[in-house]
């Protein structure tokens, strides 16, 4: 398929998906519409945030090996910008899906105690604040990097290195807000301190998987000259490490709640371990941990494109399943997957691809103006 053909397919997909999305609201009900909306918007948002985190991480630690690859997560982090209007639109879902908007529910002492945080004005302020901070980070880290392509101004590296540690703090707070506000507050009575870290683990893994897929795609088309399997090996190593990290945090959260057996904590798991949801947890354990862990153990697997493509794709699917497992049970209708879910998927994925294709027209495929590019290309294990 040629370039314009791909574009046409994506546009047709997005329009058809949009039709299905709108039909969902009228046919299957607005609750299902908004649950899908939040699921897909958080999915795409976390991929983008993970990529933004990878970009900032490179500046914080002063990594050189990843400089030739940096443009890839930089472009992918544009998804965060795409998802800002989606987040603003999702505010409509507050009275429909979020029980704490109901005064009746707030009378419950547990939920009522959280009213300081869970109220609509503060929620809107937090959404706007997060969006503003992300756009700021995007402008400083990504736009600055693209601008560097022409001028090759090394002062960008200094600015980025100063801003990146600040962004780390911003990221830590905002990703926790995403986790608490959009996901965990769907069941406002639930407590979990580690939930933000859990979402962070999935986010970073999703960002890494998307970056790995895009890097392999560009390498196969010869658009990243000089990038060797040694660079890819590091991405594979990161995937391997954070597969374990995600499982560690996920299991730690479950173990403590299972042990303490407190009603305000276990009800969340009880809901998500029965029937099809319980089967889904086993699928998650296999796809999100055992398969990538065992496949990525040998040294060759971490740099071999064939295996990495499979694992990275599986990680994205697993990240979606993870979010589906956390968000969808609030609907109370079991594990549904039918045309509304499919059309939401087509709509969000096609729009994301269109957005990224647009982002690919900006700047070079590698940060050619970065003074450390040469050093990065010379990286060997």
């Amino acid at each position, binding site marked *: 398929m040629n370039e314009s053909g791909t574009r046409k397919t994506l546009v047709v997909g997005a329009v058809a998906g949009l039709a299905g999305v709108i039909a969902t609201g009228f046919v299957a009900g607005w609750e299902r519409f908004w649950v899908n909306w939040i699921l897909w918007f958080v999915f795409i948002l976390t991929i983008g945030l993970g990529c933004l985190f990878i970009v900032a991480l490179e500046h914080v630690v002063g990594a050189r090996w990843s400089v030739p690859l940096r443009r890839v997560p930089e472009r992918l982090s544009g998804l965060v910008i795409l998802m800002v209007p989606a987040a603003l639109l999702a505010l409509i879902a507050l009275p429909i899906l979020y029980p704490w908007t109901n005064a009746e529910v707030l009378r419950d002492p547990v939920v009522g105690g959280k009213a300081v945080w869970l109220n609509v004005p503060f929620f809107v302020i937090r959404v706007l604040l997060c969006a503003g901070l992300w756009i700021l980070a995007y402008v400083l880290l990504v736009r600055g990097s693209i601008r560097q392509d022409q001028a090759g101004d090394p002062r960008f590296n200094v600015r980025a290195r100063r801003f990146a540690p600040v962004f780390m703090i911003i990221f830590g707070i905002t990703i926790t807000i995403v986790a608490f506000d959009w996901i965990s507050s769907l069941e406002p009575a639930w407590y979990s301190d580690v939930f933000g870290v859990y979402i962070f683990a999935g986010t970073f893994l999703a960002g890494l998987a998307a970056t790995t897929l895009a890097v392999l795609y560009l390498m196969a088309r010869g658009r990243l000259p000089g990038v060797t399997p040694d660079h890819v090996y590091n991405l594979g190593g990161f995937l391997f490490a954070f597969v374990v990290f995600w499982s560690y945090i996920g*299991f730690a959260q*479950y*173990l403590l709640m*299972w*042990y303490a*057996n407190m009603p305000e904590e276990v009800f969340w798991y009880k809901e998500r371990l029965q029937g099809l949801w319980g089967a889904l947890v086993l699928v998650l354990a296999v796809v999100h941990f055992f398969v990538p862990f065992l496949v990525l153990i040998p040294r060759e697997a971490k740099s071999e494109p064939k295996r990495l493509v499979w694992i990275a794709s599986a990680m994205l699917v697993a990240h979606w399943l993870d979010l589906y497992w956390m968000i969808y049970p609030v609907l109370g209708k079991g594990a549904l997957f039918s045309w509304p879910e499919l059309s939401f998927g087509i709509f969000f994925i096609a729009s994301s691809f269109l957005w990224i294709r647009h982002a690919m027209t900006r700047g070079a495929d590698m940060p050619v103006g970065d003074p450390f590019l040469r050093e990065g290309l010379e990286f*060997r*294990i």
Partner: protein
Amino acid sequence: MSNRTFSVLGLFDSSKELMDAIPVVKAKVSGHLDAYTPYPIHGIEQALGLKRSPVGGMVFIMGLIGAISAMAFELWTQGVDYPVITAGKPLFSWEAFVPIMFEVTVLFACFTSGLGMLFLLNRLPFFRHPMLRSKSMPHVTRDKFALAVEAGPEGQVLDVERITAALREAGARTIEILDQPAALGPISPRFLLRTTVGIGVVCLVTGYLTYWSMKLFPVTIPMVHMLDQPRLDPQRQYSYFKDDFGMRMPVAGTVARGHMPYTIKTEDEASVLANPLPRTESVLKQGRQGFTTYCSACHGILGNGVSTLTDAYGAKPANLVADNVREYPDGRIYHVIVMGKNAMLSYAAELTEDERWAVVHHVRVLQRAMNARDTDIPKEIPR
């Protein structure tokens, strides 16, 4: 030619010269190639044709063994060998065992990678590696790069002149020939004495230092923090609760595990109870032991109500082998053991439920034995 040669070393000035020399030397001579460099050089394993280290596979297998054995051991100890219900969880609570399984996996894997590398693959303790006494040693840890053709573990005979020529041609600046290490002789008394004294001194010094530091810092008594934590001991006062008792009454209707309350009031009601125990040898032995310990003092060892107590105090314990008791159902005898009768006290505290039923069996045995019939005698008396 000499079969006493361990290796022939050629020294090079840079890593590039070394890497260039490897294919040249490889083409000329056969033998184990090895390199000694001040820092790791990328791709040198492939250039030398070294086999990949088996450490990875060893670590994986041992890690797997660690994981499986830890989980199996925990399931066995907690669920089979000494089953204890903890925090109301099921006996086979695999969730609780995962952290320890994880730790044991890491432990096995770490020990395998460390010890396996040092002792299995690098053959420690190998004190007399000829390289350690060579003139090149200071250089290859500092500024020179050595390529060695070695005899290898099978003691290949090296053609020294040919190797030297090949190394020179490849650009080696200096050549050094290393002899095989002398075979390790028997352990000398001097070595033994030194080792023993050395270990003794180390033990004394560490022992004294530990003692001294514990004296000096008495606060840091190890491992008492769990005793010091704020907690409520049994039978203590606690002002948090209105009645000032630290211990709470269990919820009404609570039953201790293995202590079902006995609610039957009369012997008639108890008559319907059936003995749940089979008449196996071990049950009958248990019954005899229970009877001898608790019942025989009054009822007599034969259960006929004749015992030492009868003579001393004039008490009249029931004759358990008499016809009226023989007609009692099992449940009625059981009821008397639990509740007592007339002057007899309850034996519920002394005998568990199973032991009481075993005693009932023994009473039946006594009744049968004390009322033997002629037909019980075997017709053919064995000679």
